[in-house]
């Protein structure tokens, strides 16, 4: 069951984050009884506690998920319906992520205008399957309005990149 596997992996991710936090925190001072460092908890205590709680509850959640029946995990049977088209739905998620990362990578290098176009237009045209006219007009309108508001109204400097 993909939902079950997905939640297990997510909980495992939180467990790993908690483990990393706790281990790293043990390298910091945890408690001071007196002296120059002051009394009581030091820098390491809070992250250690947070990491330990994350690990414990992630494990609780993983055990709980493993014990749940398919009907309990997916009471509405949505997964069965969804998975009929599983590739297209994750395709949209990965596509959004790809173009977002591209935007982040190119923003300073090629500038705000070009990177924004490379974010919005492909998503509208190829991911959301809009017509050319709508995709282009929405892209240009969004970029124009945001550029105007940010640069002229709010005075925010945006990277120019290739367009000087």
């Amino acid at each position, binding site marked *: 069951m993909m939902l079950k596997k997905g939640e297990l992996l997510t909980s495992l991710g939180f467990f790993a984050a908690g483990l990393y936090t706790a281990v790293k925190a043990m390298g910091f001072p945890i408690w001071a009884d007196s002296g120059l460092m002051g009394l009581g908890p030091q*820098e390491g205590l809070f*992250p250690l506690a947070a990491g330990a709680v994350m690990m414990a*509850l992630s494990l609780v959640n993983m055990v709980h998920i493993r014990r749940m029946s398919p009907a309990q995990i997916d009471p509405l049977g949505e997964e069965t319906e969804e998975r009929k088209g599983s590739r297209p739905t994750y395709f949209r998620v990965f596509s959004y992520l790809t173009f977002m990362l591209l*935007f982040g990578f190119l923003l300073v290098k090629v500038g705000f205008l070009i990177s924004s176009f490379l974010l919005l237009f492909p998503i509208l045209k190829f991911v959301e399957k809009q017509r050319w006219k709508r995709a282009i007009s929405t892209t240009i309108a969004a970029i124009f309005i*945001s550029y105007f508001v940010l640069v002229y109204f709010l005075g925010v400097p945006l990277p120019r990149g290739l367009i000087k």
Partner: protein
Amino acid sequence: MLENLALGFSISLSLSNLFYCFAGVFLGTLVGVLPGLGPVATIAMLLTLTYKLDLVSAIIMLSGIYYGAQYGGTITSVLLKIPGESSTVVTVIEGYEMALKGMAGKALGIAAFGSFIAGSFGTLVLSLLAPPLSKMALDFGPPEYTSLMALGMTLVIYLGSKSISKAILMAAFGLALGTIGMDPVNSFERFTFGISSLREGINMAVLAMGLFGIGEILYLAESPAARALHETVKSPKKLKEMLPNQKDWKASAWPIGRGTVLGFLLGVLPGGGATIASFASYGLEKRLAPESSLFGKGAIQGVAGPESANNAAVSGAFVPLLTLGIPANVVMALMLGAFMIHGVTPGPFILKNHPDVFWGVITSMYIGNVLLLFLNVPLIKIFVKIIEIPYVILSPIIVFICLTGAYTINNNSLDVLLVIIFGCVGYLMRKYDFEGAPLILAFVLGPLLEISVRQSLIMSKGSPMIFFNRPISLVLMVIAFFAILSPILIFALKRWGLVSNLKESKGGYG
């Protein structure tokens, strides 16, 4: 009191602040109308704008978004049977039924007037309560603040969460994220990975935009069905259709009154808020109605009460924020962030040190409620048109706004990457029902909690009994312990047959 209100109105009635108030309530209504994009994501996206505005204007606008969104959600609840906001889920039950009977205008009208009355009352009580509460808060020391913050987080986890274990996990994650950067007491670097930008920690706007903005968009991208629009019922064409008649007022008067009081009280409570207030009001009205069989078939009381409650809760939520500096819910946590961006810490000293901010914000809420009434009654047609904008157009635009907004915080591409990372986390959280509220609250309160815990233990030379020796702190700790133990207590009482029909608390272990 009158002098304070005069000061407040002199600030909030300036042209620029009137504009920001209008922008806030308009944006808020717009946001409320669009399912999936809530006040949390919108305020998170606009937090970056607040760098450029002065504090009063920023808080006025953000507050307007919060209470405007409550009404915006009503429009989709009544016309589309889709709750625009979680606080308007209950309105779907009666409001849509009224719309099917051709009474959409009345449902929207009574919601608008009820919201206005409740919002105005809530603001009045806030004006009266805040000064004495602020004085009382001056007696709060680090132990009291520790206990209060611990209580606030406990109530958010135990009252507002479907799964307590997941909520605690999220709170711990938020605490962990809050430790990134310089330690608040000794300026020791923690989890910065050698990146200088991370020395100041993760920016809250980045975290919130990622979790609630990008995360929601990715979730909707996966589930096309969630984006499908329902057919609308006939929306009101004339203003006259939205005005309640005498019979409507007679049926709605007491529900509006009860909803207002209940909503305000629940809004004050950490972990409470507009959603719980609206549900509680609906339950109360159903119980008190002379003919409860009408509920579920278009009972106007089922719209009037909850809609009043959710707006009153918004005013109530400002009480702990402005007087104690403790956010009662996620939106208030973001407001706290907005205050701190400007170097102002809300709490007992804000009244003394920044009375212009305090009274300017409170009086703007009076104005905002009036604007909301005049905006929403005649402009209903415009908002209905906006509902028709397809999500396939909105989603990439929201992504664009979030990423651009993240960059403009510090002109740093790292913030863009962080928004995307938190967006992935938010997507997984949304998909597998991990709630964001405990995470954000813990993230905001964590550093403050750490400071007050460490200060308290320095005061007591390391003894934790300081949290139990002081009366206010003791009371708060006892309430927190009861909240933690409540599911077990209720389970035990039921098991022993001492209570037969007591409903289980909302939370559960696992």
